[in-house]
């Protein structure tokens, strides 16, 4: 009976760990992922950062493409203020060859990415965060030297046209953090491409 229930719990464990990922306010574990130049990047590399705008994105997804310029703009505005963008491609490159490491380099060069574009080959970072789609944003804030999740969700409310967005969720959230407040809106949703998980 005891063995049985322990086995049941072990069986449920991955589901419990992956279910939804980090909650708002929860401490976020650092990661170490490969950048396009072959160097490894962690959040802790940015010693001066007040936090991070972590964006799961990719090459192929039409939504991800529509937001590329806006992601560059976010980094250009908020990196100097202490919130750099770190982009992560979570897709399995066998399922989605367009998102291969080589194609990531091509895309980053074409668009002139001003931020690291990391590959999450094991998909463990995407799972830890509870990312489900591209693009999917997680804002991490440093509080008493701990890294806490401050926002998760969409970049804004108009994927078609940045100029017509009524609510720029990520900007609103980082602006709140910069004023020492909690993000007023800390969880939003948007349509995106499903993350292409490895076929097990």
């Amino acid at each position, binding site marked *: 009976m005891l063995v049985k229930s322990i086995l049941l719990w072990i069986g449920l464990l991955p589901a419990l760990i992956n279910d939804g990922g980090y909650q708002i306010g929860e401490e976020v574990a650092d990661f170490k992922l490969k950048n396009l130049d072959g160097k490894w990047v962690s959040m802790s590399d940015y010693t001066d950062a007040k936090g991070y705008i972590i964006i799961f994105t990719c090459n192929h997804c*039409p939504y991800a493409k529509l937001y590329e310029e806006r992601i560059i703009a976010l980094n250009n505005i908020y990196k100097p203020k202490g919130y750099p963008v770190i982009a992560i491609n979570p897709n399995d490159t066998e399922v989605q060859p367009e998102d291969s490491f080589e194609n990531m380099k091509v895309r980053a060069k074409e668009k002139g990415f001003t931020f690291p574009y990391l590959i999450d080959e094991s998909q463990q970072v995407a799972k830890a965060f509870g990312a*489900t*789609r591209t693009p*999917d944003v997680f804002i991490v804030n440093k509080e008493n030297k701990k890294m806490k999740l401050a926002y998760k*969700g*969409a970049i804004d*409310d*108009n*994927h*078609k046209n940045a100029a017509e967005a*009524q*609510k720029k*969720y990520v900007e609103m959230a980082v602006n709140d953090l910069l004023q020492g407040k909690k993000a007023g809106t800390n969880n*939003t*949703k*948007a*349509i*995106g*491409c*499903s*993350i292409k998980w490895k076929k097990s």
Partner: protein
Amino acid sequence: MKRCTRMSMIFIMTGWFLINPHISAAQKAEVIDFATLEQLIGNQQKGISVINFWATWCKPCIKELPYIDQLAANVDFDVRVILVSLDDVESTESKVNKFIQAKDVVSKVVVLNDIDYNSWIDKVSPAWTGAIPATLLINHETGERLFFERELQQGEIELLVQQLYIKK
């Protein structure tokens, strides 16, 4: 005389449509907002509704779409399928209609013209984070709902619908 001409015109036109099944079968997607989609779902009193969120550019969506489209033909009870395209409304004709006509899609297809996603995703299901494909199954008699934010496999959707139907 005038009435006679009109009648014969109607007969001729009806005959033309009958011998041209391709023309009568070619459906066009209706462009609707989220409130209208809610009404479409809410108006249903009986049977099972299957509401599938897809887009022409979404590979896993295109893969599962035929299984969902054929659902009503493959089960012996009342199933109504609504295929909700999230393609940009501007490409309704060039992408959505072109696709559904080429694939001879038989289910109702709508294009959802409501890009303030955060305002309605939770109304479909609080469990939905926004990735597509996503599918909502509703048993209108019991009110029970099942929601899946992933690609459904061939045969799987029939089983899920059967299970939901039996539960009434």
